[in-house]
């Protein structure tokens, strides 16, 4: 065997003029003079272009041998070795000094290589690395090698495309990389405060955050001296602390939105097989169509590469075989993101998850998990894990997988059933193509595996984690599980609304209207229903939200009522639930999350906030408990006030309450309610005129109760009021149903009509009514009041909550003192309705005045200050 090339020192040659140096090799030197000579020899022994010069930075080495040796080399190789002595500052400082010297002394230097004094290079290294850098696009800032360790021999492969997402969890870019001059010229340097290690990782992440990327140099010939004790070994001992420091310093890179954007770019989560189109799309977001569209064979090659080299090549970890029209239907309803999220969760324990779309008469959307036996053959979407399909492909027997469509399938499966209203989908879409494509693909995968070259992909150990898991690992670093597969759009704001249910209640309609305003302002809006897998298809729902996700049974009911809580308010244990990371993943990419009355989710807000999300609570009303004590959302929010950036209060009354609780004034945003349904001005004018004509004609007095038939609404009072006012010339209607339940409902003298939600139906009800009665025990600012006022109804309501802010007693409505005795309250309602308190004409005269005032109420105007506030605070965020 010949002499190792590292030891071959070429004879001194003519001096290399500084203007001809194309690559500078910076060698920090501290206490390793003997090894330094070897490093220098390997630089001087580089073969061919580019002309290279070494800069030895004696980092205040206590042994004079270091600078003497460097000086001798410099004298023997003029222009090819420089030596600068500096006061000890650590590895980063020494590298930075070398970089400064290189930039200043070598004007034609195109790149700088960082070589540690105990490492060495094979002779072709710089030639190849420089050629790779020259051939790379300008955003490639550094060329990184494989690592061949000597001393304690081991070899590590770093092949494959650079992936920042993987770099967030593993530092696979060796400090001994060739760095483009222009990268250093932007001012990027090694962090001199990081003296315990990982400063190279930090440097790469700085560069990546600035938009630079790395590129791997195959078979590079970088030689790393590994000894049982070294700086790296020391750093590994302090790994946890150093990682924590890195995560803090590079928090912007770990923002969930950034991670999702990276995932979409580098590691799209789904391989979406579209048999109708004969294509496979690799994409994160089912709503997107901008992921790479591949022919199945090309996709299979990628899959094959990822199977052979999981650390180097990527293929999506999840597959979805989809009927195009069914997928489009789900996307159009905003359900696809949530459905894919549910499928991902189910695929942790199941190999195949078919999706069935059912149709029901009710105007609601429902999601349930059911047995998949016999349901997969015509499922329009079939999800599977790549790992599971690969296992099947490796198995030469297909009998096991062939049972998938039978009543007794052997693979573990679960069915996701989406139920849609018949009004939306007259007939449930089915297709045999997805399963057929899945089975064909498994067969083709098996064939591809067996016809693969026996030349292996490489011999070095790949210590990196599989690329298929890199997005999941990065998300886990910030406490997230399955994230909603939604690709952030550059410049688009995202807002998430969290509700405990979506029925026809006022709070839901407030949220619906707020979301519509956000969306009209260019935001992407997302509804997360925590605690129900069934939502009413309220009018305007589809227009208000880009996505709708619902879940139940993931810990959202984990409220701890034991102990004292916070002044009696419950404490949420949701954050400790095993599923909490997944739920956080639903919301983490939002710029803003508004939690309206979802108690358990308060416990998630602090973590969302740490991830860069602005968190707000929607406060509507302080409830009363069984003992008449204040209770409900505001009290609980008060316990979690620290986790919220602010509160949206609908009334001055609620703002005062919050101030009284010690919440800072600038955290409180008054967003008043407005009528919950749209009503065109012409229709309104016509309806008001019709009522005026009817009342002038002396028709009967039409009385209306409209709302939830829950105890809060004073149903016992209502029953008494109706009983005492029923007589000829008076017509009563009660419209609504119980939502909360839990209390025995009193018998009402008038049979309740089912609730209405359509704007035209509501308008018809209010147009019919002369008076709307609201004998509630507690309220916020009921939409019923505002909507009734808009159409000229006289409103008689108990003076609770912030009703006073919507009704001026005697001016544009009537208030009944709620501090009176029950009998007196009922008597006052009866007196007003019977004309004994005020004449009927006076009673009704408040209606037109209220209509005139409410006509100006507008959700956009009410939300405008809050939106402006959000834009102002988000403008300072470090992630777009």
């Amino acid at each position, binding site marked *: *065997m*010949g002499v190792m*090339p590292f030891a071959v020192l070429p004879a001194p040659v003519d001096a290399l003029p*500084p203007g001809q140096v194309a690559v500078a090799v910076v060698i920090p030197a501290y206490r390793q003079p003997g090894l330094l000579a070897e490093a220098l020899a390997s630089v001087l022994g580089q*073969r061919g272009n580019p002309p290279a*010069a070494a*800069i*030895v*930075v*004696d980092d*205040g*080495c206590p042994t*004079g041998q270091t*600078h*003497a040796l*460097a*000086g001798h080399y*410099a*004298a*023997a*190789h*003029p*222009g090819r*070795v*420089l*030596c*600068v*002595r*500096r*006061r*000890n500052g650590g590895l980063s400082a020494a590298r930075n*000094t070398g970089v*400064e*010297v290189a930039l*200043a*002394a*070598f*004007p034609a230097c195109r790149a700088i290589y960082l070589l540690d004094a105990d490492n060495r290079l*094979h*002779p*072709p290294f710089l030639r190849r690395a420089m050629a790779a850098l020259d051939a790379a696009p300008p955003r490639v800032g550094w060329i990184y090698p494989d690592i*061949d360790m*000597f001393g304690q*021999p081991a*070899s590590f492969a770093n092949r494959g495309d650079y992936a920042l997402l993987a770099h967030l969890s593993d530092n696979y870019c060796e400090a001994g990389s060739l760095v483009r001059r222009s990268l250093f010229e932007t001012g990027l340097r090694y962090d001199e405060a990081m003296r315990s290690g990982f400063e190279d990782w930090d440097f790469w992440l700085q560069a990546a955050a600035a938009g630079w990327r790395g590129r791997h140099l*195959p*078979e590079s*010939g970088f030689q790393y001296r590994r000894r049982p004790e070294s700086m790296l070994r020391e750093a590994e001992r302090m790994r946890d602390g150093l990682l924590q420091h890195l995560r803090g310093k590079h928090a912007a890179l770990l923002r969930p939105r950034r991670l999702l954007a990276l995932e979409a770019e580098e590691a799209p989560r789904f391989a979406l097989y579209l048999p109708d189109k004969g294509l496979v799309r690799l994409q994160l977001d089912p709503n997107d169509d901008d992921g790479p569209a591949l022919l199945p064979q090309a996709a299979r*090659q990628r899959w*094959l*590469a990822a199977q052979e080299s999981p650390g180097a090549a990527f293929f999506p970890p999840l597959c979805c075989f989809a009927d195009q029209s069914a997928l489009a239907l789900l996307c159009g309803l905003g359900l696809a993101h949530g459905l894919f999220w549910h499928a991902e969760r189910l695929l942790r324990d199941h190999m195949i998850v078919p999706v069935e779309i059912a149709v029901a008469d009710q105007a609601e959307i429902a999601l349930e998990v059911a047995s998949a036996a016999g349901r997969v053959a015509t499922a329009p979407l079939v999800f599977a894990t790549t790992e599971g399909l690969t296992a099947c492909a490796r198995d030469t027997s297909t009998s096991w997988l062939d049972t998938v469509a039978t009543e007794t399938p052997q693979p573990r499966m679960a069915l996701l059933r989406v139920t849609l209203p018949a009004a939306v989908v007259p007939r449930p879409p089915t297709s045999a193509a997805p399963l057929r494509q899945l089975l064909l693909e498994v067969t083709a995968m098996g064939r591809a595996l067996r*016809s*693969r*070259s*026996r*030349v*292996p*992909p*490489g*011999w070095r150990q790949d210590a990196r984690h599989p690329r298929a898991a890199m997005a999941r690992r990065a998300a886990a670093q910030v406490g997230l599980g399955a994230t909603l597969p939604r690709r952030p759009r550059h410049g688009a704001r995202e807002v998430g609304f969290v509700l405990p249910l979506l029925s026809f209640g006022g709070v839901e309609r407030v949220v619906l209207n707020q979301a519509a305003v956000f969306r009209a302002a260019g935001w992407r809006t997302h509804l997360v229903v925590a605690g129900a897998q069934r939502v009413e298809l309220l009018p305007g729902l589809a227009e208000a939200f880009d996505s709708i996700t619902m879940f139940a049974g993931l810990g959202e009911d984990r409220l701890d009522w034991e102990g004292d809580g916070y002044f009696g308010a419950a404490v949420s244990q949701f954050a400790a639930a095993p599923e909490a990371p997944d739920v956080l993943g639903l919301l983490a990419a939002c710029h803003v999350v508004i939690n309206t009355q979802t108690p358990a989710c308060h416990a998630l807000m602090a973590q969302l906030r740490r991830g860069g999300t602005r968190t707000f609570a929607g406060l509507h009303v302080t409830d009363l408990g069984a003992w008449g004590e204040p209770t409900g959302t505001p009290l609980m929010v008060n316990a979690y006030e620290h986790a919220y950036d602010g509160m949206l209060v609908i009334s001055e009354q609620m703002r005062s309450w919050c101030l009284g609780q010690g919440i800072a004034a600038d955290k409180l945003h008054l967003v008043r309610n407005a009528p919950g349904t749209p009503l065109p001005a012409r229709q309104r004018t016509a309806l008001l005129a019709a009522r005026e004509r009817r009342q002038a004609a002396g028709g009967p007095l039409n009385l209306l109760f409209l709302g939830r038939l829950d105890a809060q609404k004073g149903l016992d009072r209502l029953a008494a009021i109706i009983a005492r006012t029923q007589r000829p010339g008076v017509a009563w209607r009660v419209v609504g149903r119980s939502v909360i339940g839990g209390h025995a409902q009193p018998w009402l003298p008038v049979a309740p009509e089912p609730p209405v939600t359509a704007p035209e139906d509501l308008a018809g009800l209010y147009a019919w009514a002369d008076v709307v009665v609201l004998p509630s025990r507690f309220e916020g600012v009921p939409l019923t009041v505002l909507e009734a006022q808009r159409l000229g109804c006289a409103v008689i309501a108990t003076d609770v909550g912030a009703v006073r802010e919507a009704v001026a007693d005697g001016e544009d409505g009537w208030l009944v003192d709620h501090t009176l005795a029950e009998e007196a309250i009922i008597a006052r309602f009866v007196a007003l309705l019977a004309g004994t308190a005020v004449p009927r004409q006076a009673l009704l005269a408040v209606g037109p005045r209220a209509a005139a005032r409410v006509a100006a109420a507008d959700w956009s105007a009410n939300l405008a200050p809050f939106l402006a506030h959000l834009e102002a605070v988000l403008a300072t965020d470090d992630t777009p």
Partner: protein
Amino acid sequence: MTVWIHRTALAAFLGGQACLLVQDGLPGQEALAELGLGLWLLRPGDGGLHVLPAGAPAADALVPLPGVPAQLVAVVVADAAPGAAFEAWWSAHAPGNPPMVVAESAAAALPALLRQAAERLRETAVQAARGQQALVAMRQDAEQNRSALAAMLRSAGVSRPMEPEPLLAAEPLPGVSAGPRDGVLLLRQTLNVMLEGVTAVALHVALATLGAGGVLRVRLIGAESDRAFGAWQVPAAALRPGWLMLDLPTPLGPVRETAVLELATLLEPDEELRFSLEDALADPVRAVEGHPSIPARALAVQAWTAPPGRRCVLSPYWDWDVAEQVLTPPGIAMTMPREVWAAARLPEQASMVALGLGAPRPILSLASGETALATLPWVPVRGHDLLEAEVIARSPAAEEVEAALWLLPAGSQPERPGELALDAPGARWSGWQPLPAGRPVLTIRLRLPPRVPPMVCTVLVLRRSLGAPEPCRVEWAELAARRLEDPPPEPAEMSEATPLSALR
């Protein structure tokens, strides 16, 4: 305070030349330029002190001096003020203290400079002496290691050679091959395996119609260093459809590099040489380079490994001038590869028989009173001193058999005993040696000529005395070459025909 330097002067200042830094304006400073040291001036300027080479115009942008050069002999100042400022800067930017010399003039500084220079010389001399001592220690260490390694290899080499372990087996796809372009065959195939332990590789020739002078050059490269770890020159005659075995003399040591095969030859218009491609698909990174194929495929190729020293083979194609392999230590038996045996010329009553995974060996059948020849026309022996043939009786009555080993010029093809003669250059024989009674194995040793050619022809001659009528079977089981530890000078009386046993 900052010390500045002109950008274009920075490389020279840090470039390793022993230098002086002198306060600009020091009386007689020009004289210091005569000392043979680099002379640099220290001058107050904008923002602090400026460093500039003596006699050079200051025409370039200034940059802060990041540290101090390694070979600064002294800083000569006349005034305390700039000296103090420079010392303060030094303490913030560089280790230790500056080698200050305070003197009113250059002449006054000379004694101190001389002392400093002398001290530097002394330090350098001490370091040089220490360096020599270290070299001695390293040389002794290396020599001990080499001796130990040689002993280990000898120890390993005297053991029975190991069958190589398959490392890679890419089978050929009939009808699909890679060949020359415009008369040039230049193919490169990464094996993507580590070179450590590689003992042989094989390529599958699909088609070969080369003229007599044609030669295929094959190199086994370490991709990371571009070094050739194996090199073969395969003559046209050895290029036939089928697997082409290329053995390394010994398994490669711990070489942590990627194995790459390079094939090259020039072809005449009427010549053809094509190599089979693998019967499986490869991604572009693993496909053969130099021959675009769609879909991408690798060459059909095989590779084997063996532990260090446990398989020593003399490939007839091995190119000693290119590959960085030294000869194996003395005493190691270098066996002959498959292709040497495959070229055997045998009488009609002989056959080639393979046992286990080994290459087929000749088995000769001898009737009473018969003589038989087995010839290996091309036996590589370059650099070796001794040939050893192992003959094994495969049937009873072997004691009636005698054997002799003949050495003839390479390519000889004697067919009968009468054609064996000692008048050809380098010809010699071992003399008749009987198969020992009670032991079925006979080892015949034959000393090689001092100026041994790269190849010789080796002939095993067997004869059987008159006796039992039934045929006797004898196997030529092994042929190996060895270097001798200290080959004795060839005695003048030792004729070309002196048997090797005379040496023992």
